[in-house]
């Protein structure tokens, strides 16, 4: 009995240990499987979540969004227009940047040239009048020539001063106008690019939708797979637990005494394992 019991005890303890190890191994294997499954899901998600380049092509040109950024390429017509606009803007800025005196002098010269014929006619008329009056040769300390000549000279000088002032004002106005035109042209030269940007920006929501769908799909898939992995892990754990219970119960069944009814009484007998061991012991001479 003692040996039997001892051996039975040892075997029972060993079975329980083996059962425990089995359950441990099962749980570890299930975790590794889940880890591997999640890793796969992560890889899948990473691939699915990765930016997908896209291009937008309109009449303005083609815009491409890549992982490194965006590139826009205007249509040749617009490129030529942009070049024209920037060139014209450069010219305007160049004109606007000219010294004001130079421009004013040029404009004053034009005004003087415009006034010159009438001035010459008036001068000749005065000369004729003075000649008719016999006063062409008048020189005076007060007026230089005649009072009329002085008046005309004053008028001419006033006109020249007015022309100079007008020329300067006109030059300033033209300078401002050149600047404004240049600025306008320069601003217009960016319009195609702005349009390109806008078209890229306009296409971005659609790309985001796609990405969002992908992301959503990926997240959903990941969630599902995670949930699946968790469910598997739970099922594995349940299965493992059930297996543990089963094995525990099996082991307990082996170790539990047998009950019989004898004569209406319950009798307790050796466990199966004890029975098995007893048999073995009997075989090998062991007895009690």
């Amino acid at each position, binding site marked *: 009995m003692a040996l039997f019991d001892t051996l039975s005890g040892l075997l029972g303890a060993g079975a329980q240990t083996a059962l425990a190890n089995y359950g441990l191994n099962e749980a570890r294997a299930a975790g590794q499987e889940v880890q591997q499954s999640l890793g796969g899901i992560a890889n899948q998600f990473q691939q699915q979540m990765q930016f997908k380049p896209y291009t937008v092509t309109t009449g303005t040109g083609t815009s491409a969004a890549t992982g490194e950024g965006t590139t826009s390429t205007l249509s040749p017509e617009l490129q030529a227009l942009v070049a024209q606009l920037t060139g014209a803007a450069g010219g305007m800025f160049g004109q606007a940047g000219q010294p004001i005196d130079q421009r004013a002098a040029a404009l004053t010269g034009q005004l003087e040239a415009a006034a010159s014929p009438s001035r010459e006619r008036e001068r000749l008329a005065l000369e004729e009048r003075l000649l008719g009056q016999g*006063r062409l040769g008048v020189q005076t300390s007060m007026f230089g020539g005649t009072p*009329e000549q002085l008046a005309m000279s004053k008028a001419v000088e006033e006109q020249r001063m007015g022309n100079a002032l007008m020329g300067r004002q006109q030059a300033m106005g033209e300078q401002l106008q050149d600047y404004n035109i240049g600025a306008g042209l320069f601003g217009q030269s960016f319009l195609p690019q702005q349009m390109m940007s806008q078209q890229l920006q306009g296409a971005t929501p659609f790309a985001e939708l796609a990405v969002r769908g992908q992301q959503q799909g990926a997240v959903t898939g990941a969630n599902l797979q995670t949930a699946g992995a968790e469910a598997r892990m739970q099922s594995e754990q349940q299965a493992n637990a059930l297996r543990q219970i089963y094995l525990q119960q099996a082991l307990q069944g082996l170790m539990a005494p047998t009950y019989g009814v004898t004569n209406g009484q319950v009798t307790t007998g050796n466990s199966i394992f004890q029975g098995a061991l007893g048999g073995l012991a009997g075989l090998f001479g062991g007895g009690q």
Partner: protein
Amino acid sequence: MAQQLQNITIAAPGFYGLNTQDSPVDQPPRFASRALNCVVDQYGRIGSRKGYEYITTSSTPLAAAGLSAIYEYTKKADGTQVVLSAGNNLILRGTTTLTDATPVAYSISANNWKIVELNEHVFFFQRGYEPLMYSEHLDVVQAMSSHSHALGTPPQANEALAAFGKVFVADFTTDKHTVYWSDTLDGAIWTGGATGSLDVDTVWPRGNDEIVALAQHNNFLVIFGRRSILLYQGAGTPSSMTLYDTIDGVGCVARDSVQNTGTDVLFLSENGVMSLGRVIQEKSSPMRDISKNVRNDITTLIESETSYSRSAYSAEEAMYLISFPTRGYVYCFDMRGVLEDGSHRTTLWDTIAPKCFHVRRNGTLLMGHANGITQYTGYQDNGSAYSMEYYSNPLAFGNATLLKFLKKLAFTIIGGSGAVVNMQWAFDYRANYSSRAYTLASGETAEYNVAQFNIDEYTTGVIVTRPATTTGGSGYVATIGLTSSINGASVSIQQIDILALMGRLI
């Protein structure tokens, strides 16, 4: 058959003055072919001119070189006169005693000064010389640049005119077409202010001329060229004065011939003595001159004149005188009236020979002679007798085809007082006059320089003499003359009566 004697009366013979231009036969007898040292007096008679007397008694600086210019300035402060004159390359001062008033270190070698007065200053201009000026406040003659308020470069002009409150000058050595004017009321200022100039080179009607003289007339500035005249209006403001008119073909040839009579301007042109008033009125008509009756005589004198003609207008004597010093002639134009042809009565003086004239403020006519200032007065030339001559034009007595036999000749002569007159006649344009002398009645007819205090006088005794003579000879035309030596008394011819017998026809 003998004809009846005809009495032909020539009243106021020579009253029209000289006429050497028209055909002598048909001329009215009131014209004279010769009127030497005569004037037309206030009664319309031809008579002897006055003589001259020296006012100057001491003329050492002049050295008998003669005065070529005289000017009398009346001081505004006290009304006294300062008589300035020029001669012997000096500026002289005074009347009875001439003193040298030439500025120190001012060298003169010519005496053709034009003297004008403006605002208490007297200015002397002569071509090529800095102007001189006498100022009342300094009472000295000095070079213009030395004067206290002189300004600018004094113009070395030959002609000057004080008018319109300015001094106008012209005729420079190298510029004979520009008129310069001074500042207002200051003839010593020639820069700044209201000074100025007018170049008339483009104004001459013939394209080219040279300024000889300037004048003011009818508020016009008159610019005399040698062959044209320019009239500017509004010269009070020269900077805006305008040409009013140009007169072509008539100009002035003698700077000092220009005289303003108040209503007219007389000047000597190439064609004789002209009236600017008439010229203005008749600019579109054939030109007429006041000396047209002696036109050729005067133009000959103009051509031969090598010195400077001077002139004078005497309102007192009502005459315009113009001298021709080279020949010693003076033409006298009576300014009392105008003949029908527009000319003035003209006489010729050949012995008075003044070098210059000047009419004083009191009307006295001064002249420049060798030894100083003389005055047109009396009936002697510097104390000497002079000859008066009158000759009629050849008289046909209405019919040049009839032979005339002069029987008697009678003159009615006013004055004379003992003078000897020679009645002369000749026939048929000849100059071989027959003559008969006659001594006029004596009497005091002229009382010049005679004191009247405490002298009882019943009459001034106008002497009227009717010398008459029988005459001989015959001819178709007869020339009547009368000559007289004027020596202290005037002689005037009132009337000539001729008794003639008309003979046969040619």
